[in-house]
């Protein structure tokens, strides 16, 4: 029996963008307020899982031909790598640096190396969550 999921598909098209925006917002807000790489990653992964649910594994895989295990691995490498970079600069492991930069239009902003670390966390979370969901879905059919 072919299920009619036209409502899910239509809603998903809009909602995925909202979720992705939310993920990016959470990711960047994490520096001084609630949020951060882990939460951002979870929200990002939820968007991807929603796309899998609505469109099916093959179609999404055509658009995003990634092996999510590799993405998780890249994430861990990025996170530990930024920790390791501080060792190369002769600081304690995981020491982070930040500089204030003046941007045109948006003014004084802080550029922090912790963003790279958080990006690593995000990639790890996305990779792991999507891998788990995909593996569970394979078993059911």
């Amino acid at each position, binding site marked *: 029996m072919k299920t009619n999921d036209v409502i899910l598909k239509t809603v998903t098209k809009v909602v995925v963008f909202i979720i992705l925006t939310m993920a990016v917002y959470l990711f960047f807000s994490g520096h001084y307020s609630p949020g951060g790489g882990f939460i951002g990653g979870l929200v990002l992964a939820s968007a991807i899982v929603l796309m899998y649910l609505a469109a099916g594994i093959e179609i999404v895989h055509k658009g995003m031909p990634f092996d999510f*295990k*590799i993405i998780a*691995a890249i994430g*861990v*490498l990025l996170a*530990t*790598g930024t*920790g*390791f970079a*501080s*060792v190369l600069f002769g*600081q*304690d*492991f*995981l*020491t*982070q640096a930040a500089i204030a930069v003046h941007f045109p239009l948006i003014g004084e902003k802080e550029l922090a190396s912790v963003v790279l670390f958080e990006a690593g966390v995000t990639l790890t979370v996305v990779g792991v969550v999507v891998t788990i969901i995909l593996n569970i879905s394979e078993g059911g059919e």
Partner: protein
Amino acid sequence: MNNLVVMPLVVPIMIGIVLVFLKNHIRVQRALSLITMLSLIFISIVLLENIQASGIMRLDFGGWLPPYGISFVADSFAILLVLIASIVTLICLIYAYSSIGERHEKMYFYPFVLFMIAGVNGSFMTGDIFNLFVCFEVMLLASYALIALGGNKKQLRESLKYVLINVLASWFFLVALAFLYGTLGTLNMAHLSVRVAEEGQDALLTTISLLFLVVFALKAGLLLFFWLPGSYSVPPTAVAALFGALLTKVGIYALIRMFTLVFYHKPEVTHILIEGMSVVTIIAGCLGAIAYKDLRQVVAYNVVIGVGFVLMGLGVATDSSLQGSIYYLMHDMIAKAMLFLIVGTMINLTGEKRFDRMSGLIRHYPLFGWLFFIVMISLAGIPPFSGFVGKILIGQGLIEAESYVVLAIAFFSSVVVLYSLLRVFLQAIFGETSVSIGDEKPLPKGQLIPILLLACCTFGLGFGAEGFSSFVEDATKTIVNPEIYIQAVLEK
């Protein structure tokens, strides 16, 4: 600032991740994991030397000072265990090269081993108890994968049990941590020790300490070892050897650390309980070791006996018994790895799991047969092998504490260990062989050499005990005098 302190955790994780990218390049994976373990051994030797020269070393992650930040603490006790764990892992890896099979190697076997050793090393070195939980989880997650990898029916059944029991234990661990944080407001181990000493270890704190005792007893296989014989007998030999050598030892380490550094004020409750639990563990382990004819069960129950023996030393907690526990812990890691490898090889060579269906192995593999003899007398505690020093010191501690009954049980267990292995030796190694010379299955050099290396280690640790004694004495000094540890962590 001692960035070297974090290397035993970070190096295997980073290399493990790199190996994930090299999934199909088995030779590169082998070479890189070998180099990683060699460098870990080198790093821990350097750390050990540095600690002797300039005292306990500490690294505050990101420069955040304790008790607020996360820190790694390297004292002699932790680094000795890191060193032995690295050596054992290196040798098990060499064994795995010729035995584990291409299917495993392409399914991320080497990355998982490296993640597991990272978790083990992290557990030994972490300075705060929440990260002890995290490192436990790193180690356990990797071990879940390693135990289930291969996926035959029996393996999956036992790994399900293993996962469930460990998830439950981890949950208890988390609850205990929450209680501890709620009562004392800190999770840094040195700070915990200070706070417990200030507040006095009242009934509430003692109850929390008992909750930790239950958690670590589950992980170490102290009394609550019902999951151990099943799950240690299903994975491939190299993995089983790693488990038998390392995983329970991390639980033992956590028990020793917690009950000498933090909860040492009420020995009449906690330490007596540990003593009682270890006595029951030894007796049950002895029964199991004699009862079974399946070699892997015999070996698994020998692990249980070892756990009980080490924690007897913690139970009476005198200087010499603790020193004995450290010696015996180091010895047990090496000897149990060796025993698991030998037994796995025997099963592999004969195709039988029960030792009464094997015989005369020594006629075909003379060196291998004598290696079994060596591990047997090493475990029984006969000099010059490594079990001797630990047994003598624990025995001395038990005499100082005037627990003669426990002493009798402890040494009776040595006889039982000897008996349980001797009958294997007489039946399976000695005796007439039904296979004529030349028809036997060849024993690959890649499997014999790791066992030989472990035999050298147990001989070295026993014969060179004098050389190690300065390190072990330093480790004991830190354990017996918590101030030294506290001072190194909080006041520098």
